[in-house]
């Protein structure tokens, strides 16, 4: 997989560098490389269109092993969350929010929706409600590593 050809725009920083970097293997590297280009993707099975995340060696639906990383819109809904008040690296701001976000996979050909573990940034936990619309907020931590975090989707809040 190729690295980002164009420099990614500078983004806001929400977490310190001491927060663990992604740990990758052959299967998950394509996902994280797409992230470095600020493209959010899910692993789609080319045989049955089952979508899964994180990427795995075979499709858990049809056991096929031919995939593509299908780019998704970066929109989603909040499935659940927790505000963490215990320090992890002792450098991060507390509390921070760990969330599970259900991704919008419309237009990707994926047969099912997919959730991913992430953070909600720029929000107090008191502002959060399960079912709220969220949108991707990239955090570039180096030229090769960007982390897909999310924030509340302001547009939908105005509804």
């Amino acid at each position: 997989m190729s690295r980002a050809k164009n420099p990614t725009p500078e983004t806001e920083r929400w977490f310190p560098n001491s927060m663990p970097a992604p740990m990758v293997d052959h299967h998950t590297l394509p996902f994280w490389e797409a992230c470095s280009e600020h493209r959010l993707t899910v692993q789609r099975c080319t045989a049955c269109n089952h979508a899964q995340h994180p990427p795995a060696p075979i499709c858990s639906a049809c056991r096929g092993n031919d995939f593509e990383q299908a780019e998704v819109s970066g929109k989603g809904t909040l499935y659940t969350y927790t505000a963490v008040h215990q320090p992890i690296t002792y450098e991060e701001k507390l509390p921070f929010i760990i969330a599970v976000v259900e991704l919008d996979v419309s237009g990707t050909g994926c047969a099912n929706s997919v959730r991913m573990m992430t953070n909600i940034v720029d929000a107090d936990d008191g502002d959060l409600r399960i079912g709220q619309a969220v949108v991707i907020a990239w955090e570039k931590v180096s030229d090769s590593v960007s982390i897909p975090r999310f924030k509340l989707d302001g547009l939908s809040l105005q509804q």
Partner: protein
Amino acid sequence: MSRKAHIVGVGESQYTKWGRIVDETEHALALKAILTAVADAGLSIDDVDGLASFAEDRNEAVFIAAELGLPELRFGNMVWMPGGGGGCAAVANACMAVEAGQAEVVVVYRALCQGQYMRFGSAAAEMMVGDTSADAPEVTFQQANTIMLAAMGSVMPFGMLTAAAAFALPFRRHMHLYGSTSEQLGKIAVTFRQHANNNDRAVMKDKTLTLEQHQESRMIADPFRLFDCCMENDGACAVVITTRERAQDLAKARGRRPVQVVATEQGAPKGYSFGSFTNANIDDDIYATGGTQQMANRLWRKADLQPEDVDVAQIYDHFTGSVLMQLEDFGFCKRGEGGDFIDSGALSVDGGALPTNTSGGSLSEAYMHGLNHVLEGARSLWGESCNNVADAEVCLVTSAAGVPSSAILLQAS
């Protein structure tokens, strides 16, 4: 069946706060617990020919067998079900070994001395945090060289490194779906503490807890407050399993009723992997549960027992929310009604419908990854608990929910 597995002895070392045991090694504690349990059974250590543990136990059976001077180790076993999910599974494996004739007397053990040794579950975190210091000029990918690190490596960048956060996620959704509350969780913690206040072995024997103190305790991972989280402790415990034939004689000699392991089950729902710790894609109808309902249904069928038959329960309590969701999984109440069930006072040994964690559990007796729940299960049927339930005949013991788990049903005869 004359080889049907029974629990015949239990034993433990002293339980202390995390890091307090500094003058003994962890494996020495394991030996102490094993010897105590074997003596409690009325057996000789030379009768033991099998050892079983769980959750990446540091104290491997081959070394324990050598240190104990066992005549022969015929069954050395460790469970794959992760963390506290494997305690009952280790008992189950011991039962299968004696019933199959692979061993005659199997001891299930667990020793934890986390002040001297690495803290449970911290290996990956320390490695990863250590590798990406704030001074590092460039944050780069790191190679995951185990399947577990690959799974954790996809969630650690989001700060998912603690069990409290992992298990808060499904319970937050449970609150959203069913209206369960922090006060209901507090009642679980308070009830188990009351039980522990009567337990000389309990780390929290002399510390009372009120609902107000629970509600004022600091937040760990919302909605879990300090007193929703189990302790971390040093100590060891062990359980001796053998055949009915031997158990009847041993029980008679000890003036106990034989306690049979009626049925055992392990279970991980489809695609569960490490539960909510690593898996955001647990099926929607399972996400806000303990993940143990399928397994519970199999357990009831196998034992030909119903939730109504249970006189006393020892339910794995790494977090209060997991207790609430397991009560639903195991059918003591309907899905979504765990909070009401707790509000009814059901868990109290003082007249509750389902006296639960009669020794105080992991929240208040000791955190031995749930093996102490098995000890208390046997004691509660022998009438040797610190909080006996009159005429108790059937006890359910469960292991950690929210990860692949296991459970056993015990019955006195």
